[in-house]
């Protein structure tokens, strides 16, 4: 176990403070989580921002499946929901939220998806875990934990909302226990 449930919540709260500091307040912020676990994290981050600042920050989800560059390499993926709250992304400071930053290809897809929805004033990236091994010139603005890993290892993020109570945490699994779906 690399991060416990408490560690995850502490990281989310710290990132909330960092976002408010970087943005000089909550104005124009729009949190978009990348399904499925990124969307849950975005919701938690939204709650943390509200606790800190007292104003509600809009939270949505952005599915990037249709924009992936590896669709042809995998069985047909299920398409998740995109939900953009309020009046769109134009002029907003969009914070993309995902659980694990790895190759950077998911974020690349998300940037393309965002461009089709409008023109944000700025786009930031918040991730719970940065495990390195980028394949594109992409970096995160807000990181819960930097986790040096090897390619053969798996980083497994489990969240109570999605995976059930008592399972929450971040673990690194070696190649031997790669049976479980992981990323």
């Amino acid at each position, binding site marked *: 176990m690399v991060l416990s449930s408490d560690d995850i919540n502490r990281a989310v709260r710290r990132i909330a403070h960092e976002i408010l500091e970087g943005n000089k307040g909550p104005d124009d912020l729009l949190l978009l989580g990348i399904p499925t676990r990124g969307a849950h994290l975005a919701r938690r981050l939204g709650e943390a921002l509200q606790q800190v600042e007292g104003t509600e920050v809009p939270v949505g989800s952005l*599915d990037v499946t*249709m*924009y992936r560059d590896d*669709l*042809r*390499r*995998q*069985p*047909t*993926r*299920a*398409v*998740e*929901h*995109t939900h953009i709250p309020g009046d769109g992304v134009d002029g907003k400071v969009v914070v993309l939220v995902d659980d694990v930053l790895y190759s950077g290809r998911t974020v690349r897809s998300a940037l*393309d998806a965002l461009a*089709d*929805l*409008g023109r944000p004033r700025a786009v930031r990236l918040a991730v719970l875990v940065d495990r390195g091994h980028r394949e594109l010139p992409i970096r995160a603005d807000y990181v819960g934990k930097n986790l040096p890993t090897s390619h053969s290892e798996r980083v497994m993020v489990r969240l109570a909302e999605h995976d059930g109570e008592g399972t929450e945490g971040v673990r690194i699994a070696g190649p031997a226990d790669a049976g479980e779906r992981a990323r």
Partner: protein
Amino acid sequence: MKHLLSIADLSREEILSVLDTAVSMHEVQHRDVKKLPTLRGRTIINFFFEDSTRTRSSFEIAGKWLSADTINLTGKGTSVSKGESLRDTVLTIGAMGVDMMVVRHPASGAPAQIADWVGCSVVNAGDGTHEHPSQALLDAYTLRRALGDLEGRHVAIVGDLTHSRVLRSNLLCLQRLGARVTLVAPPTLMPSGIAAWSGADGFATSYDLDEVLPTVDAVMMLRVQRERMSGGYFPTAKEYAVTYGLTPRRLGLLQDHAVICHPGPMNRGLEISADAADAARSLVLDQVSAGVAVRMSILYHLLAGEGSQE
């Protein structure tokens, strides 16, 4: 999934996957930029040997919104009218390196035959009196949006069942989704041997529309296909409209939540009255709107994943 030739080839899970993905596709329809890059570089030929407005245009729009290159061909104006055989025509098109053919043909089974000949994906966009699977999927999508889960729901399919390809696809699709289906038609338009249809069991038939209407959650009116009728299936159009049409009086027999579908094109005043077609509970335009989203989902399932092209 490589081809979409018949609903009979699809499992319940595959149907639900297509319908669920269509929900996300529907969102794209309401955006300013209606374009996804998913099928960039793929080529789709819409090969229509029979007239069509909504099916052909919605397949074309679906392909374009997914960034595929789509080309429309009709029977007229191609080498078919010079006497080239169907096999030679599709092999010629296939040799150009297309990824998918969407085929409508007056002969039942033509798309399945073409799928045997060519290497690309084939979608049946209506073949003779056999099947029209994309229509059944969009009908199911529309009904699910209006009624929720179709498990245990009662759907009546009414009208010219003998000449309908929508019927077989819808019957199979609705049954896979757990709905109870009653077929209503005059004896002359009830397909002979319908009880022996493979995969379709446990449906009821009736000759009396008034008796069925008060129990249904949805009524699907099918077009009287006069272009396919050579003999006297019913004495006069007036008599058909009175005995099997969805008249203003019959609207009153429906439950409050019951909805009306028609795959179009409608013969107003024959199988459906203007009152019924334009009623608030009529889903006719919802069906057309769903057509693009569901066909995008079909293209996505057939062309996007690994192994979709050999």
